[in-house]
């Protein structure tokens, strides 16, 4: 009994609980402030303005209560601080993961666990509406509830992916380049912790009247939507700071903290993917923030940015299509944020399990940068039917298809990597190969959307749904799972259960193939996206049921993985520190990693992927002093 009370005490005083309580207090205070002032002025309460003020204040107080702003505030007051490290004094080690911690590996796990939990929430939402869609007619959802659920599913999955990208980048990059931590550990903690209250806003949006615009929130529908729309917009907006801060950290860390001898082309390839993703996050996020803010301003103050009806003589009309430009200028590049790290994981794993060099390392590294750059030039392919200026459709068609070229370089390089190898297939390798097959389906379904005439048929149909699920799963989810399995022994010092891993794979990959092809099929036949119900006359009932079943299989397979990861924490510690016989530096030290990674800086003396070259090493872990 006392043990229970003590557990509850530790739990309720973690940063997480303090953040949630702090957010609640801030939200009420913000609402109260706005409407208190209005009451004093004799005005009726303004619900939405109150909650907007509450949302902003609530995020700030959440961060304050969690303790992530503490050191910065002390600096502002002229006081010194120490870089806290290690488990919190006088508290059990597990509380470390629920509180503000500056160690990049702890933050990486915080991101990773959050990503998986959020993935489950998003997945459950999907399964709810997929069950509704399994047969025509409305079975158990109302159209409004359906609209809220699919809208939430979209943004929640995106939040999960961004957290997963954060997990991989934060955990792996410092270790891979020989750094003890990120360049800005406190900023790193901030990046994670701002995601907590912003996610809460999005979840709150579901329950406060919901919203019906999808995650894209196009005006005018988003202008006239209920309060849930506004909370969603703010949650999305505030989450952007996580991306921007995280990107700054990765770029600076990689540019300034690499081990001696690690030129850019001698970094592990994953780091290239992470840097390319960070370049995008750093530059594009602001545009969608602007778009979301402008919708908020139009909702609150009637500023007619997106209102095309003329409000007064001489006042030029606004334009709903402007929103789409601002929105997609970020939201297209962000999909490359989602996949570049994952594609980097595939490139990282194939050499290890083929026992031969990564084919065309430089070309692969530069293809990530090329994808990031070209990815900024394609956004209007989301708007081919929007009514934007006619002439724009042609250049965007060409630029869109151009992205396929560096992407193709990756696929062909992966073939070159496994060709002539000595392949083995433990779970991480299975997921890397599965990722390639699914990303292939997704990628091949892209150019058909890039040519405008075919997009006129496919836009806003389920073909699009099939395309982006396949690319997201192939480029992020499967590689993320591959990475989790691969680095699990490094993170925990234990090995996961291989049989369960294989079961997860063999359920998930075929399930995904069926789902993707099914979605594309019904899209071609006329099934629209974002609809609660469909016409039996389309004759797609059977495929719809099949898609739902595939989704359920995928869901179960993920649960199998989670069971595996959790129960294996109790397995016997692994004997060998480097079970995959990787050349990468993180595998040359014991597992779990020491607090600051490397006792002494290592020196890079060879190529990262020279598997099979006798007597070659990548890193010298014990360089003579003076090197």
């Amino acid at each position, binding site marked *: 009994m006392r043990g229970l009370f003590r557990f509850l005490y530790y739990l309720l005083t973690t940063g997480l609980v303090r953040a949630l309580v702090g957010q609640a207090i801030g939200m009420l205070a913000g609402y109260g402030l706005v409407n208190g002032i209005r009451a004093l002025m004799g005005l009726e309460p303004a619900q939405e303005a109150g909650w907007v003020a509450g949302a902003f204040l609530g995020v700030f107080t959440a961060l304050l209560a969690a303790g992530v702003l503490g050191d910065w505030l002390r600096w502002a007051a002229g006081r010194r601080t120490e870089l806290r490290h290690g488990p919190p004094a006088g508290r059990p080690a597990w509380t470390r993961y629920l509180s503000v911690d500056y160690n990049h590996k702890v933050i990486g796990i915080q991101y990773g666990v959050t990503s998986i939990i959020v993935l489950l929430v998003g997945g459950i939402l999907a399964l709810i509406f997929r069950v509704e869609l399994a047969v025509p007619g409305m079975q158990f959802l109302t159209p409004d509830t359906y609209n809220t659920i699919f809208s939430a599913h979209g943004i929640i999955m995106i939040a999960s992916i961004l957290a997963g990208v954060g997990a991989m980048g934060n955990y792996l990059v410092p270790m891979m380049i020989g750094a003890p931590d990120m360049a800005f550990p406190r900023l790193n903690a901030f990046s994670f912790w701002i995601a907590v209250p912003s996610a809460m806003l999005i979840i709150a949006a579901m329950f406060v009247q919901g919203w019906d615009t999808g995650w894209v929130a196009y005006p*005018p529908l988003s202008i006239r939507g209920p309060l849930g729309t506004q909370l969603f917009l703010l949650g999305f907006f505030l989450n952007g700071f996580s991306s921007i801060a995280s990107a700054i950290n990765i770029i600076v860390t990689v540019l300034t903290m690499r081990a001696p001898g690690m030129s850019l082309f001698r970094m592990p390839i994953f780091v290239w993917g992470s840097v390319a993703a960070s370049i995008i996050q750093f530059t594009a996020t602001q545009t969608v923030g602007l778009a979301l803010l402008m919708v908020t301003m139009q909702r609150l103050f009637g500023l007619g940015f997106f209102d095309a009806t003329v409000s007064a003589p001489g006042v030029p009309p606004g334009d709903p299509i402007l929103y789409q430009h601002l929105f997609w200028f970020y939201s297209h590049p962000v999909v490359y944020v989602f996949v570049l790290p994952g594609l980097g994981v595939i490139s990282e794993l194939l050499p290890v399990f083929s026992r031969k060099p990564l084919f065309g390392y430089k070309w692969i590294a530069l293809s990530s940068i090329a994808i990031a750059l070209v990815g900024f030039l394609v956004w209007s392919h989301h708007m081919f039917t929007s009514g934007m200026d006619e002439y724009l459709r042609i250049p965007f068609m060409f630029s869109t298809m*151009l992205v396929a070229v560096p992407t193709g370089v990756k696929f062909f390089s992966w073939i070159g990597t*496994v060709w*002539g190898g000595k392949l083995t297939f433990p779970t991480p390798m299975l997921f890397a190969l599965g990722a390639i097959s699914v990303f292939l389906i997704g990628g091949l379904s892209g150019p058909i959307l890039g040519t405008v005439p075919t997009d006129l048929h496919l836009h806003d149909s389920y073909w699009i749904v099939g395309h982006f699920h396949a690319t997201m799963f192939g480029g992020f989810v499967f590689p993320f799972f591959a990475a989790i399995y691969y680095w699990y022994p490094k993170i925990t010092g234990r090995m996961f259960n291989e049989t369960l891993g294989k079961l997860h794979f063999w359920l998930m990959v075929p399930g995904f193939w069926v789902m993707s092809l099914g979605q594309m099929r019904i899209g071609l036949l006329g099934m629209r996206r974002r609809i609660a119900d469909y016409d039996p006359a389309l004759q797609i009932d059977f495929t719809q049921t099949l898609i739902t079943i595939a989704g359920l299989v995928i869901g179960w397979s993920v649960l199998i993985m989670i069971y595996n990861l959790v129960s294996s924490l109790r397995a016997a510690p692994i004997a060998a520190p480097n079970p995959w016989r990787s050349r990468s530096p993180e595998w040359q030290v014991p597992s779990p990693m020491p607090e600051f990674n490397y006792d002494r800086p290592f020196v890079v003396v060879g190529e990262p992927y020279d598997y099979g070259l006798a007597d070659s090493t990548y890193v010298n872990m014990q360089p003579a002093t003076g090197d």
Partner: protein
Amino acid sequence: MKYGRHFAIVAVLIVIGSIVAYVLLESIYALPLAASEEADGIDALFRGHFILISFLFALVVVFLLYSVVVFRRRPDEPEDVEGDHFHGHTGLEIVWTIIPLMLVVVFGVWGARLLTDIIAPDEDEITINVVGQQWSWRFEYPEHGDITSDELVLPVHQPVRLEMTSIDVLHSFWVPEFRVKQDLVPGQIHELRITPTDEGDYKTRCAEICGTSHAYMISDVRVVSEDDFEAWVEESSTSIAELEPVERGLTWSQQFGCTGCHSPDGTALAGPTWQGLFGSEVQLASGETVLVDEEYIRNSILMPNDQLHAGFGPNIMPQNFEELFAEEEAKYDGEVSIIDDLIVYIQSLSE
């Protein structure tokens, strides 16, 4: 060459694989009936894409599966056996950059030319206006006696220019059999050109999320012979003032989009069904019960938030019908009263 035999086998497998993939693709990726001139060109482009997809799919999958089978570590080999050692091949990198680049250009030019054809004006084209609103379609025929209709009737082989706008949020016009799509933007007019080639009954279904009943924003599209079209124009042009009030009421209910939310036959849509409504007792959101009479119906149409039917929210029904009716009535010199016609029509649904 070291891998000569392997490459030869792979090449054969890729040829076979491409054919198998293409056959499967054509069956899985079925397209609806092609019912417009635009569809013919677009379907040819679809076919081109499918062929390329089949080939590229086979290319990557065959190489990978072949490697998985042939280049695996055998059980009799030691655990630390290593693979072949090569870092890359600049020649290959250049080839597999240039060829895709050329394909990009080919498909880009194909797509650009096809798009130019699709949007090109035709000197014979007729203009039909399309107005979308939450959650119904209205079609107006300015060149055919100003007919307003809730179904789109098109003469076969006749080029049509649809001029489209919305009165509230974004919508999108899409008939899958015609293959082209265009968003409707409030405050702007955008055009879409279609030349239907096959007589038949189709549907346009809104393809841009527009709120609660987006899934049900559907209208009939009928492609008929030229003669049948003339006949339909003739029939629809009967001056609305000459119709019986009940028939007028039905026409108004289509024209002003009432049928998007209020069904005449009991179907549950976004608003209460009109079947059996008149003369019944309904509970209001305020708790009180009222009799649905002329007064109630008039008030509910002109001031929708006043006496909300329980279970239905505020601010869903447009609030400006008084204004819209006045505008329309001005065309008839005060000979018609839209609200009275609607009441008569709604009353008829209780008989």
